[in-house]
């Protein structure tokens, strides 16, 4: 039971990270109708930016951990958002009215560009960082000496996720930008006729998605203490799985799917085998698409002839 509780905590933390990435996928899919294949690599870039800015801040002699974290968070969100904007501008906007496969292939190319760019720029080796947030709480001490622990990092990850989600929900449901986004999702032509700047709205979608992915990248860095140039690929597919599981196009669905994938992966590693945890996540993607193509909270796709 203690073991179960511990895995539950770990799974929820991992799930929050996946959920943050999944929101980027689901938003872009909802508005532009394409899978932003490079989104996983945007997450990776976010991790790198966080690592480098953290290193710089520490070497400048800053010691207050909360201040460092805040600055790192803002810097990585801003810079990574610019990456998202640039990617959309270069690789997707020229292809918006092209045939279906073109943006997909362009996105795959962009994914290679980003991951190999950071390999060339920062080297292929894994970059470890010492634990930044230490300490934690012991929730329960089991009879066989097994301890259920909730570390401070985990609290930070979950809290940041919750705060960002609240902010994001407010943005989508209450602001002008959010209304534009929802309008573009329903009908781009009509939205344009009613004075919505579609290009700008789509750009902003990528910017917001990238900023959330940057947060996920930073949380990953804090939680696992390492980044490498290849981590975006697998994390990207898993987050996409989460988006599909939750129902692609649905924002609460993405978070729900992320939590589900995080839990499944953690429990699979805990009770079955660590080696096959990625296989489990990928198999879920296939199973969900066969039996529940619209996901948990998605709307059925209506076929227009």
């Amino acid at each position, binding site marked *: 039971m203690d073991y179960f509780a511990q895995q539950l905590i770990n799974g929820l933390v991992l799930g929050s990270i996946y959920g943050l990435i999944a929101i980027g996928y689901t938003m872009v899919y909802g508005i532009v109708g394409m899978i932003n294949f490079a989104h996983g690599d945007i997450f990776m870039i976010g991790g790198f930016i966080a690592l480098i800015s953290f*290193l710089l801040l520490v070497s400048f002699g800053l010691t207050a951990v909360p201040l460092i974290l805040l600055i790192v968070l803002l810097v990585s969100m801003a810079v990574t958002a*610019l990456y998202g904007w640039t990617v959309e501008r270069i690789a997707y906007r020229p292809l918006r009215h092209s045939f279906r496969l073109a943006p997909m292939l362009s996105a795959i190319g962009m994914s290679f560009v980003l991951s190999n760019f950071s390999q060339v720029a920062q080297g292929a080796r894994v970059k470890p960082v010492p634990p930044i947030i230490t300490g934690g709480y012991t929730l329960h001490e089991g009879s066989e000496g097994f301890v259920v622990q909730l570390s401070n990092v985990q609290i930070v990850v979950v809290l940041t996720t919750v705060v960002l989600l609240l902010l994001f929900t407010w943005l989508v449901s209450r602001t002008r930008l959010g209304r534009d986004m929802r309008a573009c999702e329903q009908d781009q032509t009509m939205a344009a006729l009613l004075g919505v700047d579609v290009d700008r709205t789509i750009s902003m979608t990528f910017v917001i998605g990238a900023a959330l992915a940057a947060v996920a990248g930073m949380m990953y860095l804090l939680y696992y203490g390492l980044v490498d140039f290849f981590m975006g690929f697998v994390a990207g597919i898993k987050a996409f799985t989460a988006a599909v599981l939750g129902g692609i196009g649905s924002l609460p669905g993405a978070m729900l799917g992320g939590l589900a994938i995080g839990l499944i992966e953690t429990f699979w590693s805990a009770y079955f085998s660590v080696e096959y945890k990625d296989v489990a996540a990928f198999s879920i993607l296939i199973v969900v*698409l066969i039996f529940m193509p619209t996901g948990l909270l998605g709307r059925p796709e209506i076929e227009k002839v």
Partner: protein
Amino acid sequence: MTAPATTQAPRSPGIAFIMKKAFISAAVALVLFSLMIGIRTEAGPTGQLIYWTRFGELASLVGIVFVGSIVIELLRRWLGPAGTSGIVPPALQNGLATAGRFVAPALLVFTLLVPVIFYNQRYMLDLGILVLTYVMLGWGLNVVVGLAGLLDLGYVAFYAVGAYSYALLATSFGLSFWVCLPLAGILAACWGVMLGFPVLRLRGDYLAIVTLAFGEIIRLVIINWQSLTGGPNGVSGIPRPTLFGIPLTPGDDGLAALLGIKFSPTHRIVFLFYLILALALLTNWVTIRLRRLPIGRAWEALREDEVACRALGINTTTTKLSAFATGAMFGGFAGAFFATRQGFISPESFTFQESALVLAIVVLGGMGSQLGVALAALTMIGGFELFRGLDQYRMLVFGIVMVLLMIWRPRGLIGHRAPTVYLKRAQAISSDLVKEGHG
């Protein structure tokens, strides 16, 4: 593409506009690269992260972006807006047809002569074998992507199945290459059907991502099922192919001894060259024949419009499954060849990058054009060889080329559609006009 010819954008933007754009690009590049290029991190000797600055590189990159932006804008001004014409003009069409008539046989004759011309250049022969392997993979994937319009991002899975089928059957049971080759094809086709079943209802992007996941699953299983596949260490000591039982070895029963000529290791390379050429031509021949059969026409109809297909009574289930199985079978053949050529295989050869490379070849080749795929494979693999010295930049350049290619010619180098069936004369149209179905 859909923009009307009379765009209100100014034909010749002024110098101020160009400079403003260049400055913005440079500023964006400065922010993007400031941390990633300007600062280089590395794990130090004690595990502690260290960093050093590279402001020189940063400045030169930003400069390149600035100048590049001006050049692109000037080029755009000089070339003017790209016009798209719907119908391929008859002159061009005739030209293409003539070229098609002459280029393909010329290429074939040249390929047949390659081992004669480059007999003493081992490197050229190896490169030729590599190019032909990708030509074959491209033609195999072309059945799935180009003809049936099913975007498959996990094609390398079938390549892996073929390679491991041959490797394991040959090393464990001592079966010969010629017995294993059809077996590898059949096994890969079975996997193709297995993948095909669950994804029947999916279309477009979903299909792409599921096939990708499938490819990854196969690779992960190969890595982790150590008792069968040897895990990351791979399978070594895979037997070399024989000329229908006659080994190409220096021994008494070898081919050289039988023919009474002096043994040379090049014989085996030349044999491998003709072997993969034969396999590739088989793929090509089967594809061309299938296109004329009802099943091939059903594939192409499925690519254009799935709903219309169903309305016309085409069984989309069998059509899709047969496309997957056919494509996978050729992938399996190519995999078996790869295993016997290398003599050693490991999961590293079957990564997603390989799938993306083959897909890029098919798309660059114009999706559906056999000649286009062959030319694209030649260009891609040849281009890769040019960058061999710059190993770490290879994939970066590949990614950039893929993006630029999609922006420049989303329909590939040979982007036209010639009808397979026609009443009086074939009128090819630009593939921009084709409204692709959901796939």
